[in-house]
């Protein structure tokens, strides 16, 4: 029996947008893709709507990313350019800059680690992540631990690098 899509929509939409946002880095586009994914779900009526949605969303985001790959890399480089006058602590880093730093850090993760982390953050259970990524359920904890560590390290390295560059 397929899930009640309207119900899934209410519960999952924000998470799906968030999940997509961290792949396409454009709030409008993320919302569009999420709605497109739900629209497809309405047509396909999958058994496991939530899981299906994230698979479809991930695919759409990947297609999107391929298309915008070059542009995106260029943008990342630009955003990683250290701000010369910026030497304030973490808290003061404005939201935009922090977002680009997180983005840059996320991009240093392996695709599998990143996917697991984003799925977890989107509210998926280990079982769901296992189904989605093809990882063994028992490996999810380890994968997430590694992903989190790398994210934090890459982020700190990025910020520090930026400050070094600013000072030097």
């Amino acid at each position, binding site marked *: 029996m397929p899930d009640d899509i309207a119900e899934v929509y209410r519960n999952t939409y924000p998470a799906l947008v968030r999940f997509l946002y961290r792949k396409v880095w454009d709030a409008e586009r993320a919302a569009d893709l999420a709605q497109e994914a739900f*629209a497809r779900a309405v047509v396909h009526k999958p058994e496991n709507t939530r899981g299906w949605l994230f698979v479809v969303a991930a695919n759409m985001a990947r297609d999107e990313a391929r298309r915008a790959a070059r542009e995106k890399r260029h943008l990342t480089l630009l955003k990683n350019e250290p701000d010369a006058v910026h030497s304030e602590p973490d808290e003061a880093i404005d939201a935009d800059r922090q977002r680009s730093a997180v983005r840059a850090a996320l991009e240093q993760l392996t695709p599998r680690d990143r996917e697991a982390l984003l799925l977890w953050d989107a509210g998926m259970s280990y079982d769901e992540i296992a189904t989605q990524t093809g990882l063994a359920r028992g490996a999810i904890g380890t994968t*997430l631990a590694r992903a989190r560590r790398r994210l934090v390290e890459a982020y700190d390295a990025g910020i520090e690098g930026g400050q070094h560059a600013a000072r030097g």
Partner: protein
Amino acid sequence: MPHVDEGTLHAYLDGELPFAERKTLDVHLAECASCRTMLEEERALLDRASALLGAARPTERPAPPFEQLSVPRPPRRSPWRVRTPVAWAASIALALGIGYYLRQPSTGPVASAPEQHDVALVQQANERDKFAERFTQPAERADENKPAPGTPRSHAAARAPSPVPAPAPSTVAAVAVPIPQAPPLAVARDIAEGVVKTAPVAKTDSVAASALIVDGGIVRQQSAASQSRNAAPAPAPALEYMSTDSLARGAAGVSQATSRQSVELRGRATTTSWPIISRGTARSLLGTDPVGLPGLARQIRRSPAADGTVVVEQRIDSATTIQIFQRQSGTAALDSSAKAEIAPADRLARYLGRLRVEISGPLSTDSLNKLLDQVQPLP
């Protein structure tokens, strides 16, 4: 129990450790200080990672209502399923149009034989509905006044009506206007009256007279069907027009199709299938300002034959539209053989500046003449 790995700790912190393992771990943590330290480190890492991800989230916006999402989207996903019949109809109509267009050149010489014209006109009339039946008789009556066939004059006149019958296929869908298969009786009567009014006055070649009638008839139907001539016709009616046309062609039979079809088209394909153009385009085609009756709504079209002929259509009233054909007087056009005639029978004509101007419409010759006198360059 040996010390735990970070993966287990993360699963524990995530609340995803199976119940039995969780119990065991709880026991171990109570005894093992280093594992407790490690747990706190992992908890800090986890919180930090969550915070970072939280910083990279889009501005939360409320989800659009589900109904909004599900209603318009599915049709967007399957537009072709819905429109398949329409698409088929359009393809067939287009194919017929192209087919007809391609065979058009061979029909020219045959069509100029007046006898065949007459026969074909009558047949064409029969193929059409009530309205057509009515105008057949006056057309035959006018026939009696016809000059001997084969004279240059009748030849010229025969070639004169509605300049280019075959619309370019690409323009058909865009500008074709429906010709209802069964026009309302009132319209039919109008047309019949138009015949009576025009045919005797014209006192000449039946082809010419009929062409004028058909012109007028179609213009009238059109204005009855649509109050706004400026509005582009909807695609659906255009299809209707195409299929009506092709049906009639099918009925015309294959054997004598050539001459018949050309005349049929001559009658049918009035300027309603000509592409609508802007005044600027008309100006560049004519080399000067297009002419017409000032102060009346107008629609400018060009001949699909690219012979530089432009028609300005103007509404006299809600049911009457006149057509003012114009082209540069120096250019060779369709009715160049009729040039000797200042006023060929089918259309009253005059020269205005560099333009040769002809007027046509469902009005008496006198009225048309007066209107033609008032024609002047349009602002």
